[in-house]
């Protein structure tokens, strides 16, 4: 996917003034925040479960090479082929190679964010093959000229029902529907035919289970089940970090994943796919491939933001982020939006290509407290801010202001003098109501806000005067 993260500010501006999007975002927030809260209240001890989930994910990352080897061995033992991709381009090349080997013309896909990283659909179409997204949200976006996803769980949640009805009406050439059930029915009917004619199914992977060589898929529409079992060939694409040691571990993580994501105690479907169809078995693909993707992940593993790899892609951080809630996912300019995206995007596409993302956070830590695997997201954002500062990637005036402030704050006598002058100057800028309408050098504050003026004398001046009396 093309990176547009360097245009964060402009894109956020547009989104803030998109009335339809704003209404959709409000509805989304008002629905999913309470749903998550209520479903997690079903657990006896959320914090203890969360700590267990953190430990499971961290254990996998601590010895990732070992778990990958075990996974590889067990997946092969069950007849699957395990391939590795270092780069997004290699992901696409491997998929096309598999397609050629099996004479594939038509491909169906269930949701895979990793494949968004490499723009897989475009690569498939460029090779002259057909690809159809079967996750309803992804399908809506695909037929709308490949609009990018705006959320990792609900890729089309920025769209209202009416907008979807219009897209279906125009693209399917059918009468315009109004009810959600009718729209879902139309989607199902159109997709059903694709399932039956596809030669290959591509899925993502919520978890790769080392002890069994399985891939776990968590969905609500049943599309992943069909996409991975009807065609002869199944290709599961997943990042190296998605490994978990055991099925028991999956059970623990599954107590948190659907609840954190959509507020469901359990998703409608959980597929655990292990190996190829055996003799006498009815279900399963005849050929099963894993494409295990690095694409920058091993570099994250060795970095000071490695905790980000614990992510299980529930989306709770973005659902609860005051910034995401107001601008949506597209402003972030790449595959992963919101707090986790502000770490992963700079790490995967280069910090210099996403300078605003680690900065675009109030550090309120609402993301950190809802994260089911305890990723300290604001701390990681700060680590990237440190890198930007150290690598001189921030504007010179910001650096000067910080250094100037830091120096002054270490020299109390000068600080007292300068702050005394400063508060008087600011006081002089204020109107009769004690508000400053326009701050020089900080227009960002005063464009849509006043700045309450300082009292005019500092605490230290007043305190000293009081002590002298």
């Amino acid at each position, binding site marked *: 996917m093309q990176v547009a993260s360097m245009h964060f*500010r402009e894109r*956020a501006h547009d989104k*803030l003034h998109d009335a339809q999007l704003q209404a959709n975002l409000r509805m989304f927030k008002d629905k999913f925040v309470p749903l998550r809260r209520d479903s997690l209240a079903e657990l006896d001890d959320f914090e203890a479960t969360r700590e267990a989930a953190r430990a499971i994910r961290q254990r996998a990352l601590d010895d990732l090479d070992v778990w990958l080897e075990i996974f590889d061995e067990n997946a092969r033992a069950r007849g699957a082929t395990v391939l590795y991709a270092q780069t997004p381009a290699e992901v696409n090349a491997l998929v096309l190679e598999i397609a050629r080997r099996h004479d594939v013309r038509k491909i169906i896909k269930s949701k895979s964010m990793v494949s968004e990283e490499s723009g897989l659909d475009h690569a498939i179409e460029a090779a002259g093959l057909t690809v159809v997204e079967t996750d309803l949200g992804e399908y809506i976006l695909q037929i709308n000229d490949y609009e990018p996803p705006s959320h990792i769980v609900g890729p089309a949640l920025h769209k209202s029902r009416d907008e979807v009805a219009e897209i279906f009406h125009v693209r399917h050439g059918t009468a315009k529907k109004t009810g959600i059930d009718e729209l879902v029915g139309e989607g199902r009917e159109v997709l059903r035919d694709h399932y039956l004619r596809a030669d290959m199914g591509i899925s993502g992977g919520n978890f790769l289970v080392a002890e069994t060589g399985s891939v776990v898929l968590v969905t609500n529409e049943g599309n992943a089940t069909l996409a991975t079992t009807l065609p002869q060939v199944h290709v599961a694409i997943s990042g190296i970090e998605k490994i978990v040691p055991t099925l028991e571990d999956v059970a623990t993580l599954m107590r948190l994943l659907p609840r954190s994501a959509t507020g469901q105690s359990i998703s409608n479907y959980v597929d655990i796919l292990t190996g190829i169809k055996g003799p006498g078995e009815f279900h399963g693909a005849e050929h099963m491939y894993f494409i295990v993707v690095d694409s920058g992940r091993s570099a994250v593993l060795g970095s000071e933001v490695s905790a980000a790899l614990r992510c299980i892609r529930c989306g709770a951080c973005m659902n609860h982020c*005051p*910034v995401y809630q*107001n*601008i949506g996912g597209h402003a972030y300019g790449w595959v992963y939006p919101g707090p986790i995206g502000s770490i992963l995007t700079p790490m995967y596409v280069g910090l210099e290509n996403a300078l*605003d993302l680690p*900065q*675009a*956070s*109030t*550090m*309120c*830590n*609402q993301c*950190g*407290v809802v994260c089911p695997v305890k990723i300290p997201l604001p*701390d990681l954002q*700060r680590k990237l*801010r*440190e*890198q930007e*500062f*150290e690598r001189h990637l*921030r504007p010179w005036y*910001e650096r000067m202001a*910080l*250094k100037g*402030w*830091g120096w*002054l*704050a*270490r020299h*109390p006598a000068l*600080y007292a003098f300068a*702050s005394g002058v*400063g*508060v008087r100057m600011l006081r002089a800028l204020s109107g009769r*109501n004690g*508000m400053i309408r326009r701050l020089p050098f*900080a*227009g*960002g*504050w*005063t*464009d*849509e*806000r*006043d*700045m*309450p003026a*300082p*009292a005019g*004398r*500092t*605490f*230290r001046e*007043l*305190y000293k005067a009081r002590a002298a009396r």
Partner: protein
Amino acid sequence: MRVGLFVTCLVDLMRPSIGFAALRLLEAGGAEVCVPASQTCCGQPAYNSGDRADTIALARKVVEEFEGCDYLVAPSGSCSGMIRTHYAELFADDPAWSARVAALAAKTHELTDFLVNVLKLDRVPGRYQGTVTYHDACAGLREMGVKAQPRALLAKVAGLQLTEMADAEVCCGFGGTFAVKFGEISSRIADNKCQHIVTSGAGAVVLGDLGCMLNIEGRLRRRGDATRVLHVAEVLAGELP
């Protein structure tokens, strides 16, 4: 009991009355308050902007200024949170300083938490006629566990009625330099907060962090709204501006 009052740079510069209100409350609780004259800033602006060297220098300065006190108390969840939850990480590779920082962190409190849990204040000097709503500032809430303490104290203010607004725990959009760097997004988040405050019907919003106060008051006034914005210390001490 010697309590070091960490005034915070924003209170020092913008609204000294909060510092005096804090002083009065601590003394009302029987504490002997000292106010180190050389104090300036906890280093949080540098910390959150990625300037680690300046942060470390300022953190050392705070430790030197306050380690002689029995407690460090700040009328801010954000600055006390910086000292209590973030300083340690800065000195992870420095055992001597680590120990000093840990000792200070252990005795660092946000003002209302200190009044309730250490001084066990049972009466407050303040009186207030009217209804207020309380905004839970992020660092106080999520770093310092400040939620029940200010409400317990406000309940002791004669004449004061507390009404809860929707999304009281949601960020106001301040975020330090974020408010200037991303002014448009910050103002929108602040506007949502203002809407909830107005909808609550309260005549004043009370909170414990000056950064959020400046942000919320600035946005309220630009909306043409006169709802008062008060620091919890001002209300409790009865020193309204």
